[in-house]
């Protein structure tokens, strides 16, 4: 985020004709708007989303179901499902301007420079092909390797992701493997061409805790070895706390707060982030404290409220919150949040200075 954007209010952002790509960033999403045009009406899944990822960095995107975290990541790969369409903003990845790429160019990029692993390893592998077929497919498609070389590479990848007896596994079908193993295979496929960015969409949600620990450890270990950047999408604050460099908190198609992991956990600025952190029980707590839930229900995206989408559930809601969306306030260079309370605090601070 540069300083100029800071002064551009969210409401007038749509009128800014050209976003300027910051070449330092591997992923640079600016003011993305994406809607699903359903028979029931336009669902504004993403409403002015901006985020960035630097090379080799782990960005965590947290939020509830329907907050737009997966949609953001998928649109980066050009995988927006019908009837969804990007209707505004610019997306850059690794120098490519995603908005302007053709399907043919996208195909070259997918699996090669950018890869994805999905939540459910049971359904994202093809049940009628062997593990070997599915790993070799990616290698043969994107590199000029021969079948034999591809097979060697597949074997190497399986040992890289910690699967024993790789020769035997290459000939097995997905149903012969356990959930944790399948997720390892998915990671092997995703990493086959050493991508610059790995998108992990709830990679451990379907797995048991002890297996989750294995998979997260593996992902972080591979990141250190291969140096790729990771976008980790999850609703589990515990998972991001242990793995991410930076976190973006999404609510109803907006990034409401973003910042380094420690800032988000120890100095949360947005009321939603604060509420989220207060609402989860802490295993290390010695006394029984009552949980403080976020009241109300998630936003109906067909009829989102005017103004801040979190306002109807917010404990500190003011009149202005119901009318218009606040712009981002930068607390530090990397930590920013969109909340009127922060504007109010800044304004009061300025007045005190004057006095």
């Amino acid at each position, binding site marked *: 985020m540069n300083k100029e954007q800071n002064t551009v209010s969210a409401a007038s952002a749509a009128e800014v004709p050209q976003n300027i790509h910051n070449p330092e960033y591997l992923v640079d999403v600016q003011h993305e708007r994406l809607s699903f045009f359903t028979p029931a009406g336009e669902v504004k899944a993403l409403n002015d989303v901006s985020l960035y990822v630097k090379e080799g960095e782990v960005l965590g995107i947290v939020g509830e179901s329907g907050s737009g975290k997966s949609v953001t990541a998928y649109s980066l790969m050009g995988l927006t499902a019908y009837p969804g369409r990007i209707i505004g903003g610019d997306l850059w990845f690794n120098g490519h301007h995603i908005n302007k790429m053709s399907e043919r160019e996208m195909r070259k990029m997918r699996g090669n420079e950018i890869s994805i692993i999905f939540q459910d390893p049971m359904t994202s592998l093809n049940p009628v092909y062997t593990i070997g077929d599915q790993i070799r497919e990616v290698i043969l498609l994107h590199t000029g390797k021969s079948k034999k070389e591809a097979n060697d590479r597949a074997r190497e990848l399986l040992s890289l992701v910690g699967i024993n007896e790789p020769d035997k596994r290459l000939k097995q079908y997905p149903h012969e493997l356990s959930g944790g193993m399948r997720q390892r295979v998915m990671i092997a496929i995703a990493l086959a061409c050493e991508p610059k960015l790995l998108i992990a969409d709830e990679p451990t949600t379907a797995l048991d805790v002890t297996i989750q620990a294995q998979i997260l450890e593996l992902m972080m270990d591979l990141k250190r070895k291969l140096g790729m950047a990771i976008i980790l999408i999850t609703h589990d604050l*515990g998972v991001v706390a242990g793995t991410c460099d930076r976190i973006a908190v999404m609510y109803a198609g907006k990034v409401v707060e973003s910042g380094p992991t420690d800032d988000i956990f120890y100095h949360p600025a947005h009321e939603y982030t604060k509420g989220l952190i207060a*609402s989860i*029980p802490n*295993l*290390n707590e010695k006394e029984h404290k009552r949980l403080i839930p*976020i009241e109300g229900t*998630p936003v109906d995206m067909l009829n989102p409220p005017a103004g801040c989408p979190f306002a109807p559930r917010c404990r500190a809601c003011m009149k202005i919150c119901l009318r218009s969306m606040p712009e981002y306030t930068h607390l530090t260079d990397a930590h920013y949040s969109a909340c009127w309370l922060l504007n109010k605090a800044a304004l009061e601070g300025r007045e005190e200075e004057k006095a």
Partner: protein
Amino acid sequence: MMENEKLVEVQHLQQYFPVAGSKLFEKKVVKAVDDVSFFINRGETLGLVGESGCGKTTTGRTLLRLYEPTAGKIFYSGKDITHVNMLPYRRKMQIVFQDPYASLDPRMTVGDIVGEAIDIHHLAKNAQERRDRIIELLSLVGLNSEHANRYPHEFSGGQRQRVGIARALAVNPEFIVCDEPISALDVSIQAQVVNMFEDLQERMGLTYLFIAHNLSVVKHISNRIGVMYLGKLVELADSYELTFHSVHPYTRSLISAIPIADPEVNRATHRIVLEGDVPSPVNPPSGCRFRTRCPYADECCAQSEPEWKEVSPGHFAACHHLDRVK
């Protein structure tokens, strides 16, 4: 809380399910629950945690005789209910299911879903009384009277789970099995439902068996926690005792594997990452079932099953190497 009156007790509960073997006509059994014993005092919450396939849900359902137990005994209020007609007990023992999307009949209104239990047990004398009772139940779980005429698809996940809870409360039960009641809900909604369970317990003196895989939540809501692995109870203790002074190697690795939502604590935690996967319950390892993944395992573990012993008052564990783990 009343003084240590055992409301529910199971002794050496076994639940085996037949499965087809690899050969034609070959029959095998899955030992889903194998020799599990515990009790729940009136007014308390017993948490049951474990990985998928460890038998925690089966334990809960067998306890209610939704499955007929293969062996073992179930007691309710001191009476053996292993082989009796359950109808009178259904008024006292209820269940809340995991998936609020699957456990509510889509073709019934919420009022009828809640009212069905009232009809079956003849709890209302006339239509007016039935209606009043439904509205009372809905308001108890934070819904209002106009919701009674709507269908399940019109509700969000959290609201549906409230309907499921209202249905369980319709017969004024004393004991509720909560089978993963919050895992299908959004994070911000989970706390609402957890608080509601606590409020209801306080108001109506309910006793819970709270089944979940999320140890943080289970520890929050439970007085005591039992940990299951492959159909066996491996450790049972007071919830604080269990989280801070666990003795079984499986419990320890389970606790260390939970990601804590605090970056500093997370960095400082030494993870005991278990190797491999949970073995198949069709063909569980001999002796101690955890031995294939246990860092302390030796020959003794392969030969004999560890005894279920009391380590300290109220703290039970089954492991051969408790002294070494310490």
